[in-house]
């Protein structure tokens, strides 16, 4: 979880995503992925205030996309001007790999809940209905994008690529020296936590019960609104932030 990446040095920052989408649309065999890429990607200099966004959160059985599975999906389309709850969507999905006891405790989802849940393949149309034309927003980008990528490789025979806005990377960027030196620790300085709940606390955002994909997606959407208001501007181009 200790990402050293600051959003200024990211590899994806200079990617021409609209061109990438066009190229990927021409090569993909999956109609769902083609529709996704054809829906397009906003130009890199688009002002944040103009960007259609979608907060995305997965609960998974672990941290490794090759060994663990997605068990629930939370999706909240939004913009900097508002987060309409009517469009929020939550879906349990049946994992291909067995669910470990530990993650049950974290998510409060039980085996019987999941036995009745559909496979991800059955809800892909709905999921893409939310993703098409929007930029995903996540807290900690090493989860949602890689897990979706692997899950689609299994189900569609090919993976997916897209830019994300990572609220955790933004926090990491804002607190480059968040791990106090030994000397500072002696003076009582605490490390700055960039976990979702702690980050929200710095912006006066309320405490939400965590470990539910929809609540976390909503929490992430609110956090991005707060970050932009405090540290960026509505006309900040998305190229400065996407990864």
């Amino acid at each position, binding site marked *: 979880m200790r990402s050293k990446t600051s959003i200024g040095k990211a590899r994806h920052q200079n990617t021409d995503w609209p061109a990438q989408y066009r190229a990927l649309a021409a090569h993909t065999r999956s109609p769902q992925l083609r529709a996704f890429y054809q829906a397009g990607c906003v130009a890199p200099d688009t002002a944040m205030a103009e960007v259609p966004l979608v907060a995305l959160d997965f609960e998974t059985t672990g941290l490794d996309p090759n060994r663990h599975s997605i068990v629930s999906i*939370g999706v909240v389309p*939004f913009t900097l*001007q*508002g*987060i*309409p*709850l*009517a469009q*929020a*969507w*939550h879906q349990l999905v049946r994992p291909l790999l067995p669910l470990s006891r530990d993650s049950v405790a974290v998510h409060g989802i*039980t085996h*019987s809940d999941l036995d009745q849940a559909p496979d991800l393949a059955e809800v892909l149309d709905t999921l893409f209905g939310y993703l098409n034309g929007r930029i995903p927003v996540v807290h900690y980008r090493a989860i949602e994008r890689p897990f979706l990528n692997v899950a689609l490789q299994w189900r569609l025979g090919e993976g997916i690529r897209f830019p994300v806005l990572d609220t955790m990377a933004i926090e990491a960027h804002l607190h480059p020296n968040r791990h106090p030196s030994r000397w500072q620790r002696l003076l009582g300085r605490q490390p700055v936590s960039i976990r979702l709940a702690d980050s929200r606390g710095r*912006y*006066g*955002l*309320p*405490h*939400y*019960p*965590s470990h*539910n*994909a*929809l*609540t976390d997606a*909503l929490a992430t*959407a*609110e956090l991005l*609104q*707060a970050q932009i*208001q*405090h540290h960026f501007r509505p006309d900040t181009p998305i190229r400065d932030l996407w990864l």
Partner: protein
Amino acid sequence: MQAELIDIRNHMAQYPPFDEMPEALLEQVVQSIEVQYFRAGSAILDFGQDSRWLYYIRSGAVEVFRRSGELYNRLGEGEIFGQIGLLMNKRVRFPARALEDTLVYRIPDATFQYLFEHDENFADFVEIEDRSRLRSALSRREKANDLMTARVTRLIARPTVWAPWTVRLQEAARIMTEQGVSALLLMDESTIPPRLKGIVTDRDLRTRAVTEALPSETPISDIMTSDLITIRSSAYIFEAMLTMLHNNVHHLPVMDGDEVRGVIALSDIVKYESQSSLYLVSNIHRQKDLKGLKRISQEVPDTFVRMVNEDANSHMIGSAMAGIGRSFTQRLLELGEEMLGPPPVPYCFMALGSMARDEQLVVTDQDNAMILDDRFVAEQHDAYFLALARFVSDGLAECGYTYCTGDIMATNPKWRQPLRVWQQYFTDWIEHPKAEALLNSNIFFDLDGIHGQTEFAETLKTLIAEKASHSQRFLTLLARNALNRTPPLGFFRTFVLEEDGQHRKTFNLKRRGTAPLSDLIRVHALACGSRAQNSFERLRDIGKTKLLLEDDLGNLRDALEFISIVRIRHQALAIEAGRKPDNNVQPEDLSPFERSHLKDAFQVVSNAQKFLRFRYNAQVGRNAQ
């Protein structure tokens, strides 16, 4: 609604007008919400822009301004703004700015209009603004303390920390240390949702595990408390405080039906608002003898003054003082039973009058009675109960609760009777009422069991609630009694003007203000079959019927609050000045603010009495002082 949005619904369900909204309707509201964040200092609404939303503050604080730029209101969590623009002309009339970082839930105009058309309570709530001078005079005071109006869920600041009830002592201690909690819930996971089995607190760990040197593999179920005291999530913080005090526990699981919402600790409440009365009450329960109780009773006036200075409202002070009085009585009964041995038959000790109504102040006498089990045989058992009643009554007198001049005390054999006799008393009073007898038994219609078989008192409450509303003659006579004491017509800087044109120098705030109010509220409450004892709760019950108009109810509530608080302040000032507190006020002692609002409040009392006379056909009112 997505079940996952339940947190949003639960938050709104804590605050008016959403707290009384039918669940299905509230879910529609949640469904229509847009969330938006505003940084401190940023504009939320500009004057003249289109009104498109009603705003609900989820967290943070907002300032609302008049057009002139003058501050109109300051709002916090759970409050709404923007309604005036939506109601008036679809233009923002009162611009708003985030005072702190603020998260708002925006409810679209269409939803707002739907609620306004379909939910009467909602419509009333958003319409009533500045309607009554009295109300706005009170609102500032109420904002300062919200133990009475805030719900316990507001104190739940973190996800519930729990463990399976099968864990070992060491594991439980480790979880508590790691999570930094002072209480751990123990759940039975074999059911869905998991069921609460018990609680273990760090006090348990200290007193039981450590002092008894239990091995670390001891099952936690050996030391957990399974006889759980819990509180429902809709309860007010103040109720939680009283529950903790009554049961001498420091942690309360907060329940939504069978489901755990969280745990609150006494320290959460103390942090929320310093509550000196808390310490006093827990201290009372720790005293070993009458001497200790007497010593502690000297602190009661100070506690009273502190609460007044902390800007508590009259309901809070009244309940706290009644809670203190109850605690003295309960502790004396326990000490008495220790001394005399266990009671030969079950009994219930009953508080009457202001203590039962939770409306006690510092100057108060004792009004109490005993309901004995029907197996009671006077020759065999009464010596015991007389001794116990004397012990309690003398003890209360030592602690500052003077003997009742009307001899309404358990020491009086007439008021120390088996349940069936009490049932007969009440049946006679209600079904064959006599004016003179009723005058003296008024006080019995405010009753509360405080020790022993409290279900005896509940039986009587049920009997009263069932019979009173059917006896027109009883209500008429009771109403007539309630008209015996009238408020002054008005007053000026130096004198009180009476209805007969007389001038007086002082007037009694209890006899001329709060007592006539609680008397007339009692009549209406009995007429509508309410079981409540507290005047504010009675008003709430009356509100559920069509007996009084909503406006009149609000006026009565405000008048009672205002007269009570003036009375309370008057007494607190006397205590601070080292004088003996009383209820007699000279108009000169009042501020111009108090004088003008008291005039309004007395006008409310007077109008309410006129209505009472008409409603219950109680024409023969007398004017007594």
